[in-house]
């Protein structure tokens, strides 16, 4: 089952900001005008006042999160200490649990099935911003500007509107109910990873203890809606320090994994080499069941790709992605668009910088141990995204290069083949190291792709990636 990426953010939005980048110890930097500050002060009062907010900084919340048709309803449990430590648990209907935590030093996430990972600093900053009871008091810390933009109607409420700019450069618009002073709506401008922006509506304000906050949150992004309802909230609960901590075993394994990933990045050439890469044309041959094909793969940032394959005896197969549409056209099956997992697989294979993004793409990892692959010592790590396990990756213990991946191949919307992919014959081109031979096996087949030539930073017309329906 796929877990939408913002599963935790939906729950944490109950009180906090959508996604501002901040650090807990940053000094105030924003110059806030008096009218804007007056709106923020009123907001703090509406929530209970500064004293009540400070006393309520520690809390526990249970909420239900509804994704509509995309996934079954889930329960999220969140504990937050006044000093910013937190733990969130997402419980899915089949009993699996995903956990995020921060013990004041180390932030992490974990899933029994998918693995463990250390949370990147930027993501931690976002998490700390969200769910902070003292948010109304910390706007100057979290944002670099905050201005009044007049009044607007929203949901039959006349609202005061503030425009803010986060430290990440992303603009936000906040709406405050003119009658109650509560913040009722947040509009966040498009940002990397969120090309259509995010909108959050907050309602059903209830008092718990001495603070009042929204118990109903609707988060909308790109046509997807997530509804979060608080079921219960406890102020100043008894919190056990260990609940925020990862286990020593998890941290030890994470250390092995981080070292392997770092070695891998160095082994493939390092970030700098890949940042110089804008496009690539690869010529290759493929042999599968004795059938020979010639392939030309054209790639262009950000994720444009065109794969032209001539299969002896069967004709041409062309597939591509032009930035909007993934597609495939073959002599035999005709034209269709690619969707879902099939499209994602094409895009991940097509990404010129995919070799530098393993850590980002797969935040959950399981250290399996040291194995031998093709005579070489390899570190075996299971890598997973929130959507599920990507596969077991075998990293050369010496040079960090990936020697093998055991994974699942999406061969169509209803077609899945477990495969083992072996990489060999590594060459370095323009500072980037890659395998020139890729062997994909399943009990029923064995496919070998051999690169003949690689040309980097070739001028490629965008038109070549467009869907070819004829």
């Amino acid at each position, binding site marked *: 089952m796929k877990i939408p990426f913002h599963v935790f953010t939906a729950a944490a939005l109950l009180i906090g900001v959508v996604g501002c980048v901040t650090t807990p110890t940053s000094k105030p930097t924003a110059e806030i005008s008096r009218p804007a500050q007056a709106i923020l002060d009123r907001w703090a009062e509406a929530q209970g006042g500064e004293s009540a907010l400070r006393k309520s900084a520690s809390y526990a919340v249970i909420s239900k999160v509804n994704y509509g048709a995309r996934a079954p309803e889930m329960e999220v449990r969140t504990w937050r200490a006044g000093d910013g430590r937190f733990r969130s648990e997402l419980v899915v209907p089949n009993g699996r649990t995903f956990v995020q935590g921060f013990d004041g030093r180390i932030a992490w996430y974990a899933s029994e099935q998918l693995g463990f990972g250390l949370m990147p600093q930027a993501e931690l900053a976002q998490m700390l911003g969200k769910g902070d009871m003292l948010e109304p008091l910390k706007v100057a810390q979290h944002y670099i500007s905050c201005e009044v933009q007049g009044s607007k109607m929203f949901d039959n409420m006349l609202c005061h509107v503030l425009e803010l700019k986060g430290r990440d450069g992303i603009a936000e618009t906040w709406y405050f109910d003119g009658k109650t002073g509560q913040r009722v709506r947040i509009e966040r401008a498009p940002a990397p990873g969120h090309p259509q922006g995010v909108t959050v509506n907050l309602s059903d304000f209830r008092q718990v203890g001495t603070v009042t906050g929204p118990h109903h949150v609707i988060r909308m992004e790109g046509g997807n809606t997530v509804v979060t309802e608080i079921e219960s909230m406890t102020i100043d609960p008894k919190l056990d320090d260990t609940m925020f901590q990862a286990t020593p075993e998890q941290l030890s394994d994470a250390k092995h994994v981080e070292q392997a990933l770092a070695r891998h990045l160095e082994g493939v050439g390092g970030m700098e080499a890949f940042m110089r890469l804008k496009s690539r044309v690869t010529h290759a041959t493929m042999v599968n069941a004795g059938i020979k094909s010639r392939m030309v793969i054209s790639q262009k940032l950000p994720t444009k790709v065109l794969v032209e394959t001539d*299969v002896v005896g069967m004709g041409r197969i062309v597939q591509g992605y032009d930035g909007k549409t993934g597609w495939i056209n073959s002599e035999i099956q005709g034209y269709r668009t690619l969707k879902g997992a099939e499209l994602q697989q094409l895009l991940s294979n097509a990404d010129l910088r995919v070799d530098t993004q393993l850590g980002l793409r797969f935040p959950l990892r399981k250290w399996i141990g040291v194995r031998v692959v093709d005579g070489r010592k390899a570190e075996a790590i299971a890598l997973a995204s929130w959507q599920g396990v990507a596969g077991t990756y075998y990293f050369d213990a010496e040079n960090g290069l990936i020697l093998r991946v055991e994974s699942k191949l999406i061969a169509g919307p209803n077609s899945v083949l477990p495969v083992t992919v072996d990489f060999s014959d590594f060459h370095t081109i323009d500072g980037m190291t890659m395998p020139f031979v890729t062997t994909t096996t399943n009990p029923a087949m064995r496919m070998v792709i051999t690169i003949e030539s690689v040309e980097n930073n070739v001028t490629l017309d965008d038109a070549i990636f467009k869907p070819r329906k004829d």
Partner: protein
Amino acid sequence: MLTILPGLIRTTIVIGLLIPMAVSAEDEVSVIDIPEISWAQTRDETFAAVWETVNESYFDPAFGGVDWVAVREKYQAQLEHVTDKGTLRIVLTAMLGELHRTHFAILPREAAVFTPAERSRIGTIGANFTCERDRVIVTKVQSDLPAAQEALKPGDAVTAINGVDLATVNKALDQAKVTENRREFYLQNIVSGRSRAAVGSKVKLTVESADGQTREVELKTAANEGRWSEPIGHYPAMPIDITAKHMADGIDYLAFNVFSPLLMREIRSFLRDLQPGDGLVIDLRGNPGGLTVMATGICGWLMNKECSLGTMHLRQGQLSFDVWPQSGAFLGPVAVLIDSGSASSSEIFAAGLQELARARVFGETSAGAALPSAFKTLPTGDLFQYAIADMQTPLGQLLEGRGVLPDETIQRTQADIAALRDPVLAAAREWLDRARGTPAPTDEIQSEP
């Protein structure tokens, strides 16, 4: 890092075809004229390749209850007495026969065509065949082969070929509890295979005409002067034939002898030209299959929604035969004709369209031989076809052993064929006319449109 391109997997992995053997294992005995030690090594490596391929890739890890390890021991024990390729083929074929499945075959390299120069390995006596009630009947005689025209007539029943008595074979198959449709397929293949011996070969037939007269016929195989498919990997080339006709009365007729990619462009062009008020006959009688993905490609020109012709289940994983509707697809009524000679990809095609309620199927139960397969070349140079998956229809039925049951079962008898009548085609046309709202013709329907 270049990884894998799944769009190619389905296209290149699967062949569903039963190849009529041009030469039977018994007919050929070739002595290896190389040092004995090399033959022993080649023989043993070939045996190992066959056994291990099945061991690793057979879709049922339980081998249908067969003790595959014990099978190896049984046949390995015979190897030391095997001194030639022909005998090795017999041993390997017998070993594969323990699985009681179709799509396991050893094809002599000497009978396979991979280059134009090798085309003389497959000749023709100029006749097509069908099977009716365990009798192999001549359906058509090539008009450009005078010898064939003189010797054979549509409606002639072949009772023996090159000394092989078909009644005896039929009895043995019956005793082995082979199903009727499968028996018919095998009998037809015995005749088809031998009638395609290398160019210049003598083929002796015992023939019984429709009026009961028996005669002996001897023909020499001639060259296949028509079109040939291209070899695809280890899958050899073969003669291909297509008939695609738009008829004045709006009934369109498409027949092709094998699912070969070389025919796809013509088929696509033909289907694209169909008119909204037309009815379409797709005649797959005698079509033993071919590249299975072609079935989905053709269906894309007959559908307006995404669907599946079924799913193949491998030892690990599954592949769906997805159909992608193409712009301008023909959405009028479709009749598919099958008989016991329709096998493999033909059955997947017919069953899929039948269960999707897209076509009505006429004729006789198909061969029940529908396992997706792959080919490889063995150390001896012979080709090894092996099933890699089981095949389930859209409604989850297994075709292997069962076949496609027509919506309307109609037999084309020896008398029909001799009189150039085709009651199967006639019934299909009648239904198409009703389905598209025009009155049925009252004329005698010829066997060919």
